[in-house]
């Protein structure tokens, strides 16, 4: 497979050269900036979008730490390589085709932009930026800034997929699925939901009004979690997850502090995720969205805390962490549509859902990190909650969905139905595509490592070295004589004076 990938490289470069070098927004902007004609709002909005994009990119570290913490020590290293590989593959694919499919106007392909966009392949687009990427036209930030921001979303969605597949999937599956996901599945799915597609526009008989998803409870989180579910169903549980009686057994992750660090990084990153989706700093809406986001997270933690206490009489560390993520996931879609008071409610319900969901799902399928609950179920709830809590003033401002607001304001189920249909459509599309892709991988390359390899751990099998070598290789084998003071065990006498002192002060050396 490796050699085939190598041969594909030059082809991609050729394809790039063949692209029509149409209008470069950058050059126009540069000339205007030199002439002093560039509006003040352009640099300041561009700056905000870039800051937000970098915050969202930082969430990759969060996913890495969360997954590594929830893995056993023998699978700790592989998460590092995986996150970097996936991010890089997704970057190239999203630049090449993903962004054009997700946000472009109907151009090259000539298909209605209700279905798929086709302007902006390799970030080269025809027409002015506001027309080329109509749904983001409200912001005058440069296209490159918007690309970086949207790519960071794609990378988040892809990272979510792998949480459920920990400790048993073949590395090659990452590579192949990342290409399909960042080129086709995510761009089309997100285009329908928040890229100007038919779900968002709502101009079909199926949809009573346009779907509302401000920052991607469905477009990013549910899509990622759906990919995770498809992978899970084809992968099966880890060895030893279910006892002979079929009851689920705990396979504790090796580091709750690392998982906690991951969650806190995600938490911080979310302040780019939701507020950044304004793509605009000059209307100062982003500050209010920051507060709503925090309220959602707070509600999520408290909800999970209450539920885990109720269900198992302990405050499960991993569950509280999942609660924070679930609250944040749920508040993602409504963050731009609801008043601040709705934030804690939406988050709290998400916290309850995620704990109940993890325990229920765990009985049948093995999702080590709870991605299907924290991103899937909470994502569904968050999307649906727009149908209840959306405030009329914000629906009008964002110009998507029913301007009379959600059920609580309008007394009408219009928005709720639109949200429900949107969730079902997005789930079905992504599940079908992902299942087909993973099935293909399973039939050809194979999806899962062998039993012996799973037992040995993916670090040594896929990467030839452990993430924590000292835990698995006897210390003398890697040159360290022992974990004790060096003077008493390693060096022949006479021992160096300094080492002697240290041995005396520790006082534990002789036996």
């Amino acid at each position: 497979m490796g050699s085939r990938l190598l041969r594909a490289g030059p082809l991609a470069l050729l394809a790039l050269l063949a692209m029509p070098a149409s209008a470069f927004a950058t050059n126009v902007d540069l000339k205007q900036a030199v002439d002093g004609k560039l509006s003040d709002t352009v640099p300041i909005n561009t700056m905000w979008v870039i800051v937000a994009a970098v915050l969202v990119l930082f969430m990759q570290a969060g996913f890495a730490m969360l997954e590594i913490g929830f893995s056993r020590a023998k699978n700790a290293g592989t998460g590092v390589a995986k996150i970097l590989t996936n991010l890089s593959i997704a970057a190239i694919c999203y630049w090449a085709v993903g962004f054009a499919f997700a946000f472009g106007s109907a151009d090259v392909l000539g298909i209605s932009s209700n279905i798929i966009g086709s302007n902006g392949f390799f970030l080269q687009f025809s027409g002015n930026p506001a027309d080329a990427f109509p749904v983001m036209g409200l912001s005058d930030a440069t296209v490159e800034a918007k690309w970086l921001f949207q790519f960071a979303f794609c990378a988040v969605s892809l990272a979510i997929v792998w949480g459920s597949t920990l400790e048993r999937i073949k590395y090659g599956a990452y590579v192949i699925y990342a290409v399909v996901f960042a080129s086709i599945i995510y761009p089309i799915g997100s285009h329908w939901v928040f890229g100007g597609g038919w779900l968002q526009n709502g101009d079909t008989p199926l949809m009573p009004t346009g779907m509302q998803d401000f920052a991607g409870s469905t477009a990013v989180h549910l899509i990622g979690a759906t990919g995770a579910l498809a992978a899970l169903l084809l992968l099966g549980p880890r060895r030893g997850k279910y006892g002979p009686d079929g009851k689920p057994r705990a396979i504790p992750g090796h580091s709750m502090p690392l998982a906690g660090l991951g969650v806190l990084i995600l938490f911080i990153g979310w302040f780019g995720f939701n507020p950044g989706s304004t793509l605009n700093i000059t209307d100062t809406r982003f500050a209010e969205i920051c507060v709503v986001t925090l309220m959602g997270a707070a509600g999520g933690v408290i909800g999970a805390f209450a539920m885990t206490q109720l269900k198992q009489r302990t405050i499960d560390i991993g569950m509280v962490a999942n609660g924070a993520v679930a609250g944040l996931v749920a508040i993602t879609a409504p963050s731009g549509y609801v008043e601040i008071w709705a934030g804690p409610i939406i988050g709290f319900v998400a916290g309850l859902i995620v704990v109940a969901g993890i325990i229920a799902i765990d009985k049948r399928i093995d999702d080590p990190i709870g991605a299907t609950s924290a991103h899937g179920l909470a994502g569904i709830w968050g999307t649906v909650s727009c149908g209840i809590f959306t405030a009329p003033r914000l629906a009008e401002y964002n110009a998507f969905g029913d301007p009379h607001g959600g059920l609580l304001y309008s007394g009408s189920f219009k928005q709720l139905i639109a949200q429900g249909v949107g969730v079902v459509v997005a789930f079905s599309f992504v599940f079908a595509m992902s299942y087909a892709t993973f099935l293909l991988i399973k039939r050809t390359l194979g999806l899962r490592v062998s039993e012996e390899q799973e037992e040995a751990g993916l670090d040594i099998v896929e990467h030839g070295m452990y993430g924590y070598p000292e835990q698995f290789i006897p210390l003398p084998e890697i040159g360290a004589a022992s974990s004790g003071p060096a003077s008493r065990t390693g060096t022949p006498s006479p021992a160096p004076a300094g080492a002697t002192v240290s041995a005396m002060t520790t006082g534990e050396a002789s036996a």
Partner: protein
Amino acid sequence: MKMIVAYIRHEAFEPIRQELLDAGFPSISITEVKGSGRQKAITEHYRGSELAVHLRPKLKLECVVEDKDVGFIKEAVLRHARTGSVGDGKLFVLPVEEAVRLRTGEEGEEVLQAHDTEEIPAGA
């Protein structure tokens, strides 16, 4: 010569060590071990699933002494390691055939425990 092998609770180690040291028995080894006995498994919780842990952590203490000292060591271990609850541990006495001090090559009971003289400076 006899080897005394005792499986004890972690918290029993420090007072035993102190008493042996005071009485002139500095040469002991410990290993952190996990084992099961009459003590029941504890059930741990993780993300909604249960995990029964049957093997509990204990300390294994080893000490080789002259036959006449076995009684004293046994007393010391019993005095400090016994709480009366299930899970205190066990003690075994094994015969030892030979003993060699690696540094000098001396053999026999000479090599056991503390020297009479203070000729060995710490850290040498």
